[in-house]
């Protein structure tokens, strides 16, 4: 095996077996003939702060009592570590013990049913059932189309794809530089997001058909479905579906006419979901973002043109194609994952024309709402006075948020904004890849300042300093993570400056601090 192949295999094994001990790492280095530093850097990146028991401190879990879960673990003398997003955000606070997932309710840890393999198996939609509900109905017709790019235009039309991405994908489709790749991004590390995992587990065939359709439109040679290593059930379902699909395509005489399609686990850290970081992870490197340019559509996986498209978008393709051939209007229902201070956290499917306030009402939001994270904590914080908007791209853009992950986290008036932002910045500081200085040092600095504000030890000077740090992060970070960490801090500070200033004077209106 050449060096790159050995590196890839070793990285896969480290991720799959969650290898952290030096003894085991040494064995891996020997087995694949790699430098010790190489296996160490991979392991410590993917399993930074790892232990058999992990408590999610993602905002949705935190709002549902992750701190209480921590206290209980400490009371029982169980060693644990902090992590961010284990999935199942609507069942928080989530605790992972080995391969099992628990929620902490009424002072006890209860296994989350949806996380059990037998449960996931029972929800799986086999190929025959998928076909009965219309799967692969227009596949062959599409195959015979001369210009297949219209399918991308449909995605733009319904708001699942941006105009910039469309033109890059068109360039990729016509590029002669081969092999070309399509990566289906099944990472979903955003705290509060759980739609992609559910699609992979339940609408597996729909996603696979979407991937094949897109691979034809994009004219690629290989499709790789990159699944977060925490979603082992999803991977099992995809493998099952792939074997069914293989037989089906063989029987139709299509197998050799289509690009190969495989599934691969990638590391779980938040940043790996960024598309160039995902590519790095698939190549067997640390899942850190790359410099741009070049865009992955020019030089991505192994330096070849690569399209990275999210699971939800991929799974929408067969539906849009059906609508198109049946002459229906191109509309799609977007998935929303709603958590936080609502009565009915969970997955909602709505047209994009839905109002944010309507959506929150459906999830059972309380009257006294203070603010909402729209698109996740890395997208933006929206004051309650601004929530009467529709979620179409034109309106969300004005709010300065990006809806992609569909994550909505509601904060009630009982929440202290300083406390929430402290946890948000702790998340960024924990999940920064550590590569660029504004993010590595800026997130740490914001945590420091927020801790001092929480303790009533900060001054107006500190606020100014934090503001300039956050602006520098926003303007100079290498990737979206550092930019977001600065941006959401500024979102909070500009919209809730009075609360920050009250803390400097020793007042916390939510009654969290200074008790």
């Amino acid at each position, binding site marked *: 095996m050449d060096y790159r192949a050995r590196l890839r295999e070793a990285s896969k094994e480290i991720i799959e077996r969650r290898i952290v001990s*030096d003894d085991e790492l040494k064995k891996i280095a020997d087995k694949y003939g790699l*430098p010790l530093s190489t296996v160490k850097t991979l392991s*410590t990146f993917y399993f930074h702060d790892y232990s058999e028991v992990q408590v999610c401190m993602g905002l949705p879990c935190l709002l549902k009592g992750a701190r209480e879960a921590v206290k209980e673990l400490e009371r029982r003398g169980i060693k644990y570590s902090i992590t961010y997003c284990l999935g199942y955000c609507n069942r928080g606070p989530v605790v992972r013990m080995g391969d099992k997932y628990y929620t902490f309710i009424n002072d006890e840890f209860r296994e989350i049913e949806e996380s059990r393999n037998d449960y996931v198996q029972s929800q799986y939609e086999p190929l025959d059932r998928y076909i009965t509900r219309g799967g692969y109905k227009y596949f062959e017709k599409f195959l015979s189309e001369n210009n297949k790019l219209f399918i991308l235009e449909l995605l733009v039309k319904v708001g699942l794809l941006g105009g910039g991405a469309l033109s890059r994908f068109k360039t990729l489709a016509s590029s002669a530089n081969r092999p070309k790749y399509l990566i289906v991004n099944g990472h979903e590390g955003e705290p509060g997001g759980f739609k992609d995992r559910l699609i992979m587990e339940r609408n597996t065939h729909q996603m696979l058909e979407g991937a094949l359709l897109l691979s034809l439109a994009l004219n690629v040679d290989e499709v790789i479905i990159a699944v977060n290593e925490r979603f082992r059930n999803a991977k099992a379902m995809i493998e099952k579906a792939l074997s069914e699909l293989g037989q089906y395509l063989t029987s139709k005489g299509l197998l050799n006419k289509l690009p190969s399609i495989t599934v691969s686990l990638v590391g779980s850290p938040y940043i790996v979901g960024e598309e160039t970081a995902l590519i790095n992870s698939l190549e067997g490197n640390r899942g850190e973002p790359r410099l741009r340019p070049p865009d992955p559509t020019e030089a991505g996986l192994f330096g070849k043109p690569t399209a990275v498209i999210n699971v939800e978008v991929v799974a929408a393709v067969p539906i849009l194609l059906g609508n198109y051939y049946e002459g229906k209007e191109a509309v799609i229902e977007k998935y929303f994952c709603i958590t936080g201070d609502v009565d009915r956290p969970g997955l909602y499917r709505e047209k994009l024309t839905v109002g944010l306030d309507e959506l929150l009402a459906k999830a059972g939001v309380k009257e006294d709402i203070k603010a909402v994270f729209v698109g996740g904590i890395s997208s933006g914080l929206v004051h309650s006075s601004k929530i009467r908007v529709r979620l179409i791209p034109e309106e969300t853009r004005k709010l300065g948020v990006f809806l992609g992950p569909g994550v909505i986290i509601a904060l009630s008036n009982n929440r202290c904004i300083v406390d929430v932002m402290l946890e948000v910045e702790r998340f960024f500081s924990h999940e*920064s890849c*550590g590569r660029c*200085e504004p993010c590595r040092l800026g997130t740490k600095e914001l945590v420091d300042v927020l801790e001092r504000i929480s303790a009533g030890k900060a001054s107006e000077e500190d606020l100014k300093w934090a503001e300039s740090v956050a602006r520098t992060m926003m303007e100079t970070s290498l990737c979206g993570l550092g930019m977001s960490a600065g941006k959401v801090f500024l979102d909070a500070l500009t919209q809730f400056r009075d609360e920050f200033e009250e803390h400097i004077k020793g007042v916390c209106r939510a009654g969290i601090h200074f008790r």
Partner: protein
Amino acid sequence: MGMVKVVLNGKEVEAVEGETILNLARRYGIEIPTLCYYEGFANGSCRICVVEVNGRLMPSCITKVSEGMKIETESARAIETRKTLLRLLLKNHTHRSKEEQMRCRVCEYAVKYGLEPAPVMPDVKVDDTHPAIVFNPSACVMCRKCVIACGIDQNNDVIAVIGRGSGTRVGFDLDTSMGMSSCVSCGACVDACPTGALMEKGWVPADKVVETTCPYCGTGCQVEYGVKDGRVVWARGAYGPANEGKLCVKGKFGYHYVNSPERITKPLIRRPGIPKGPLNGRPIHEVFREATWDEALDLIASKIREILNKYGPAAIGGIMSDRSTNESIYAFQRFMRCAIGTDSIDQSATLCHEPSAWSLATQLGFGAATNPIRDVLNSRTIIVVGSNMNETHPVIAAYVKRAAKQGAHLIIVNPIHTELARYAEYELLIRPGTDVVLFSAMARYIIDMGWYDKDFISKYTEGFEDWIRSLGAFTLEFAENVTRIPKDIIKEVARLYALEKPSMIMWTLGITEHENGTENVSALINLALLTGNVGKPGAGLMPLRGQNNVQGGADVGCAPGRLPGYQSLTDPEVRRRFEEVWRCRLPSFVGFRSTEMIDMARRGLIKMLYIVGENSVRSHPDSKAVAEALSKLEFLVVQDIFMTETAEYADVVLPAASAALEDYGTFTNTERRLQLTRKVVDPPGEAKPDWWIFTELARRLGYDMGFRNSSDIMREISRVATIFGGLSHERIEREGGIQWPAPNEKSPGTPILYANGFPRGRAKFRVISWRGVDVVTESLYPYVLIIGRERAQYHTATMTSKSPILKVMWRGPIVEINPEDAAREGLEDGETVKLVSPINELIVRIRVSSRVPRGVLFTTFHYPELWANALVPAVLNPITKTPAYKDTRVRIEKLVRT
């Protein structure tokens, strides 16, 4: 190259399309602060270099210019952002010493931007476990330059980023201390570090810094030496074309010899009546007396006249050092040929790569590597054969490793497991001495499969049909049987080499130091011609030269029968031209090679030798015979920078200047590139440059060479040899290193040979044969002893042993043996045994090591405690007279313990 117009700080300027803003600004003399910038690699992590572009902040080191950009490098917003970033860095930053702070760019910028520099806290916790480097984590700003240096540029892969999040840091191996790690001490991390967090132990600021070419191997790295009070105090990599800033442990930490108190500082004349040979602990002054230059040179001149009168010019021979400059070597050969009249002159190539030079010259035209080193990054398949380059040519290995990491197929052929194999796709642990069989079988298989380059062969080559007919015996089965490499692997390697093109072959002395070294090299050349892997980027034939100027030594004619620029002594027209320029009569005989000269001396036919910078008694085979030969000479002159074991046999010892650090001139590296050496320090005492000594001696013999300085010599070289026609010191100072042939001032040099065909018309396939080892020899002497080198030492260690740092890194005077062999012989690790070869025996300490396969022993010739070459019989290659250092048959005898 397209040009674009941009506005830079309010002024419209022209920019080269594709260059970075930083590059553009620097070209216009605008300084932008940088911390993480690493030339040649996109890092972009510190963002301190932000500038405002059309109202947005952009990191200038990775942002490329484009038409219409409005760039403000000093806008209030850019400066404010830099200050915020500096404040963040300074909050997490302390120094352990004033010296460390002096090395810190963060603190330098802090002062510049009106901030407080980081505090000096002497008791901060550091990692000082490494013999030469201190790591202070508290000064580290995670710019990751050391990670690039170690893991992407040098590819030693010791330093890596540990962890994730704001607590990421750098660590060594599995996060152990630096001293315990697999660090090979190349020093690239230290040279890269912008804060002093990684720094040489005991570093002091220099009074001046001078750039020159490294004195060690043939890679031709450019080095900057720091000089304080007339002594070299540190070295760091400079950005030359062959090394791009990199050095190895010898280049980085092997400079101490220059300052050594053991340097010879005055001419020495043997006291009367003291027998020649080892000093055996006697002080030098008891054996030699100091003399003036006049006295020593007069004595030598009179001895030369006396011997010429008694025996004629054929009784005098000279061996020149390839550590010297082209100019000095040229002066030597002219002095020997014209002032003395002998053609028995040689250089060290005879002991190492002459089989490569001979076969390449015979079959292709030039006796030199065909492509630049860096070109290996364009190869898709790379075969490295008979080379432990990770230790002997670490900077070249860096490029090979980088190519492999980028996806090239790397194939290693070597009897011994080498470090480079970690990066390889295939490692072929070949049975020693069977290379011809392997490469001929690959050729036969490629022909059988129809994978050869028919166009190339018909257009550019001759002798193809004859050669094909000679391959009949080399079947895959035969090859598997003889080489012990499974035939499926031979097939796959042949496929990669023939089809995954361009393919390059690199080799060192594992190919040449055999009785059939010329055949080995020809087998490689034939394979390259067969597949058309010559004359193209990423292809080619690359002998890796072992000494800084061994290529140059041959180029300027320091070899019997060969005048400067590869012109034949026996060609009447060539003779006429040289005799006209040199105003002398050239010798009318072709002289002897160095190994033959020693033999002639032993047999009493050569009466005087002039040995410059060669430790012959330890570097030639059969040391006993060499000692006998040197003792028998009527007169021996040794010119060196140290009192070597060879100088102990001399009648006169002349103190030489170090060519690389105390003289001005040129070295030619392994890729035919002429680069400058500069005077970094003055020679100690009365030591003189080699060329000066030869010029003075010639004058005393009534022959004025007319050289006032080395530039005069360079001018003459370019006049007499077409391949150097366009070269001069002035031009190389101006343009940097240039690769010959460069026939005129306009020629940019020739990075790739034979791109437009072959100078001899057609390249030639050479029919070669192979024969196995004689059965009787094999049963009497069941082991093959391979004598090579190790990373931190160099040849007979006259230079490297003076460095305290290199000394602690040595492997020691030991002989490595496979664990199974050791068990069968009943030997334990560290046991002392007797090694018996057909000509000699030695008591040695063994080390059990799985690096060597069964039936093979490995040792080095670095240690005065272990004269390994004493075991090597003077069995020479019939053409080039090169000894078989890689193929000495020995047996092991257990010592009876008392």
